[in-house]
């Protein structure tokens, strides 16, 4: 393992919501812990960490990115691919 640099560590949480409103229900989630305290991975939890995105804000997570709402291309209106309502949150542990 490489020697740790000084400064804080970032924890990132990605929530996928049921619509574009932050207070809509969580349908998918991922957590990446830069402190190394816990190794999150695919399939490690069947229960969302928060019921909604708003609950994450109330618990101190800082929202730093949200997916855009994009128009649907003609002829491809029914095509589905990736989850649509993606919100990135962070917490800093220690001083950045």
């Amino acid at each position, binding site marked *: 393992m490489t020697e740790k640099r000084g400064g804080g560590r970032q924890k990132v949480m990605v929530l996928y919501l049921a619509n574009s409103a932050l207070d809509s229900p969580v*349908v998918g989630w991922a957590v990446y812990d830069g402190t190394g305290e816990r190794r999150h991975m*695919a399939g490690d939890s069947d229960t969302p960490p928060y019921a909604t995105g708003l609950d994450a804000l109330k618990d101190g997570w800082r929202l730093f990115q949200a997916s855009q709402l994009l128009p649907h291309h003609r002829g491809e209106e029914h095509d589905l691919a990736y989850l649509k309502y993606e919100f990135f949150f962070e917490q800093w542990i220690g001083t950045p």
Partner: protein
Amino acid sequence: MTLLSDQQMASFVARGFLRFEAAVPEEINAQFMAEAGEAPEARPERKLRATYGSLLAESGIPEIAPGTPLFQAYPQGSAVERLLGLPLVRGAIRSLVGEDPVFDHHFLHVTFPPRYHEAGGGENVSQHTHQDSTIDPRLSFDVQIMYYPHAVTREMGGTRFVPGTHLRKVSEVALGRYQNIRGQQHMVCEAGTLLFLHHGLWHGGGVNLSDGTRTMFKIRLHASRSQQRQWDVGPAADAQRPIFLVKGRQPADTVAAILMTPEPWFEQDTGRLEFVNRVKLWRYLTDDATYDADYWLTRLEHAPQVFA
């Protein structure tokens, strides 16, 4: 052979999988495990890739070229040949991909316990969730048979899959960012369990935290002839059922009810498009361009006209 019912086919169209618990007799399971062979014990400094390569090289499971007729692919009397001859398996294959299916590829998936990773210096983590192959815009589908020749506990990881994701057109592991999705399932099963998957279903191998290896054998196959109306097709489609204002529970075992059952991860708007895409697939399989459930496609198909 035992063909699938309308309800089983509708469930496959809606959810992308069918599960048959302990469907393969123990005798075939034991034969398969003997033919697959055992992984060499973990050794310090030995990379997992080398261990896996050695297991595959010494395994009794043959190399087979893609494009081989499925029922000629395996040596007579081998465990997989016997498995493919079971009436349930024959019937499910016939129902899903029709007559004369073709072998695409197979693989012996072995998931190793922690000591192998520690010995090789690698990290013991689950596989990222993905869709197999590559972006596949077809309406028709291939089938992947996942065979679990021994019992799988939760500690052993098991295949993780997300029901209902199969109709999304994504690019393999581009969705690896999604660690967990509501409604995901983990294969915990008895020996001899089979999963029949639509090729598009999102899935990944779980992390093995037990003391032993976990084995799963996958075969991908595709149709060479018609895929339409190959199952035990029942009476014509149900009449449209009342929607929105309903005064009680409606029957849950009709094709329409099965096709219109949402998954826990459905987004509120695109969940409706999932219904639309399920109806499109049911139309294709039944060769009935007028079929609809809950009016989703009929509503969209009213051509704008000016009535004189």
